[in-house]
């Protein structure tokens, strides 16, 4: 008899569902991929249905259904927060009572309405928010024992927890609570710099290398007190989140010399320096916390989850310091991953299912390829129905060779193959690929394909065995969660004189070649690396391998298959639409190749720039 658990995270942002059988992850997906609404927080009907289908199970046959968070404790926080903040928090109370008291509290009813059953247990289970994060980080990791750190904006009351995982037991013994939150601090800076809270944090991190941390002292003296052990408290006088729906307030603005940057306006030196300053602060907290956690647990390895764990620059520094021998981060580190964590926790802590560690020393996240796949026959049927011209290459070696050749010729390829990724990064299943050696790749991909800010660098996918040829790193980074320096001998000097003299125009920096792989080298000569292992994704591995045969470089550019503000594509239809709306040259749908110039004129029924709200 097997035990199958459905995990759900919803009503915060980025809803998701996951299904676990006997402790093994069968499927996981975010609702946004199906609903086509970025970070969709609504009840994940589609994601749940997909998970049930993938597991060949009816809802009534599920052993249990679990929600990733405790709505009662969340409500406790909302109420007490408003009591502390006073009458000015009325607006917040209005919104929160609708969300929590009107919806989240009754998630059980949503589940019954959606799938008709709570499974054999006939009652909904709940986990603690940070327990879900911890479980999502520890159980799929390759470690029998590991220290655990979770860091996010807030979940119920906690914002930070520290603990230990051993076999199938997870223990969290220390925490920091709301309103003291490293995640909310970073989000306040994200907001102040004109990016969207909950999605723009990544941009802020990308902006940091352009700036100098000149506000670091102001942050340390006024906003945050960091103890030797990495624990911290904020001075909430500077933040708006206690009593309003914006992150910062006048006191914060005055400290940093003016109002927040207007979204989409010109990025100035101030934002670059703010980004650098908060990044330095964040790294300091995380490094001290890692040392403290090592001391408390004595564990050799570390696992992490929670939105802050997506800060791959900080992660790279923790790894480099050698505090732990090795670490593993849940790729769906923010709340979507809570669906996986909650279901794993129920498997191991409720049903007492023994934990299976991967005997080959790798993790059990399965490359995070946990979403839907479309068979070549389904793709062919779709293309036939639509009358879109294509060429089919059924031989995988020939297919990989052809794609590699196109990339080497400087063309941009939309690559759709196998099961969709779970988590915010595209890892070669729903990716746009390009040649990292060409200087123009970054600007072409940014402006003609992604329609996004050109300062943002792209990430490389590199053959796992070749990673140290390009980067100063030995370890694997299959989920693009580590940043590493490009090897010195590959770097080229940059002329930064004008920029350093105060010209804010970043394009003077961006357009310079920084190495022999310029499209993936950030201005600080770093890169956000994905290592590709043949056992995780053979098709993708072979494309890169063939590219190496042709060029001598076992590395390509990989960016997510979407335009700005759009969720990553899920189905062949989504992929085709995105392909036709952008200046990609070739679309690979499983073993079918579609050339842009051969496609019939595309009649767009909607103005996608309006459909997809800017992220």
């Amino acid at each position, binding site marked *: 008899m097997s035990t199958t658990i459905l995990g759900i995270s919803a009503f915060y942002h980025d809803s998701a569902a996951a299904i676990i059988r006997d402790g093994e992850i069968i499927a996981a997906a975010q609702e946004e991929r199906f609903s086509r609404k970025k970070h969709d927080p609504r009840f994940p009907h589609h994601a749940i249905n997909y998970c049930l289908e993938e597991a060949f199970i009816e809802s009534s046959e599920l052993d249990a259904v679990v929600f990733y968070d405790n*709505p009662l404790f969340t409500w406790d926080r909302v109420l007490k927060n408003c009591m502390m903040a006073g009458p000015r928090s009325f607006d917040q*109370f*209005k919104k*929160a009572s609708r969300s929590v008291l009107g*919806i989240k509290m009754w998630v059980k009813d949503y589940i019954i309405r959606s799938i008709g059953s709570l499974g054999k247990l006939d009652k*909904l289970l*709940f986990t603690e928010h940070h327990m879900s994060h911890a479980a999502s980080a520890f159980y799929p990791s390759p470690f029998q024992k590991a220290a655990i750190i979770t860091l996010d904006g807030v979940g119920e009351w906690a914002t930070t927890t520290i603990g230990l995982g051993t076999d199938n037991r997870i223990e969290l013994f220390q925490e920091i609570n709301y309103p003291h939150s490293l995640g909310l601090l970073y989000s306040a800076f994200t907001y102040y710099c004109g990016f969207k809270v909950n999605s723009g944090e990544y941009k802020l991190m990308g902006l940091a290398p352009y700036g100098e941390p000149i506000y670091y002292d102001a942050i340390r003296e006024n906003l945050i007190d960091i*103890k030797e052990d990495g624990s911290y408290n904020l001075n909430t006088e500077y933040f708006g989140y206690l009593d309003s729906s914006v992150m910062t307030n006048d006191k914060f603005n005055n400290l940093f010399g003016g109002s927040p940057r207007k979204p989409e306006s010109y990025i100035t030196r101030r934002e670059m320096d703010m980004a650098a300053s908060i990044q330095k602060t964040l790294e300091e907290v995380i490094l001290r916390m890692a040392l403290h956690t090592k001391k408390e647990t004595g564990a050799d390895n570390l696992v992490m989850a929670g939105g802050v764990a997506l800060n791959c620059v900080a992660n790279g520094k923790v790894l480099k310091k050698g505090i732990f021998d090795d670490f593993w981060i849940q790729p769906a580190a923010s709340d979507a991953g809570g669906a996986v964590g909650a279901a794993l926790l129920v498997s191991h802590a409720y049903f007492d299912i023994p934990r299976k560690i991967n005997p080959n020393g790798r993790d059990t996240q399965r490359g995070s390829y946990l979403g839907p796949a479309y068979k070549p026959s389904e793709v062919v049927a779709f293309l036939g129905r639509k009358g879109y011209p294509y060429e089919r290459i059924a031989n995988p070696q020939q297919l990989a060779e052809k794609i590699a050749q196109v990339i080497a010729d400087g063309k941009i390829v939309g690559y759709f193959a196998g099961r969709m990724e779970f988590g915010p990064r595209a890892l070669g299943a729903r990716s746009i690929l390009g040649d990292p050696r060409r200087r123009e790749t970054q600007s072409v991909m940014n402006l003609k394909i992604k329609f996004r800010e050109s300062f943002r660098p792209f990430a490389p996918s590199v053959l796992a065995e070749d990673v140290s040829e390009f980067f100063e790193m030995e370890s694997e980074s299959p989920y693009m969660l580590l940043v590493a320096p490009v090897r010195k001998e590959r770097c080229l000097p940059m002329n930064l004189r004008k920029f350093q003299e105060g010209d804010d125009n970043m394009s003077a920096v961006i357009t310079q070649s920084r190495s022999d792989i310029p499209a993936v080298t950030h201005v600080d000569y770093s890169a956000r690396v994905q290592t590709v292992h043949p056992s995780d994704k053979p098709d993708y591995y072979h494309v890169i391998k063939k590219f190496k045969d042709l060029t001598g470089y076992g590395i390509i550019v990989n960016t997510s298959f979407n335009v700005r503000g759009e969720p990553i594509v899920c189905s062949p239809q989504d992929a085709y639409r995105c392909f036709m709306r952008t200046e990609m040259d070739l679309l690979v749908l499983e073993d079918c190749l579609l050339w842009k110039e051969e496609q019939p004129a595309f009649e767009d029924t909607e103005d996608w720039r309006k459909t997809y709200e800017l992220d």
Partner: protein
Amino acid sequence: MNSTRDDDTLLEVTRFFFEELMPLAKKLQDEGKAFFSVKPNPNAQTYYKKREKTIMHPESFEVVGCDSFDSFEEALIDMWTSQGYSELTKLAPTLLKLAKSLYFVEEQSEDISPFIYVMF
């Protein structure tokens, strides 16, 4: 949701907030009671708090109060009593009424989600 019902609910929410919640908050504040610190304490050795519950036992997966309106009021009372905040328990009956008025069925087609704010 029809607009008359929306208006009535907003009235209830407003009344609760200003006539029950805020007066109680003021009273607690005057008594010098705070639910959390709002500023750093330079004299503190550490800001880490020791957690009381360190692992999830099978029974801790069951949250009373979220299963039906019937158990909601009592769950709030139990929670606050066990935390030592018995002053809050008198809010529970109105919160149950509010929950009933705010109870919302999300439509898949609805474009605007109520989850517009980062914290909830």
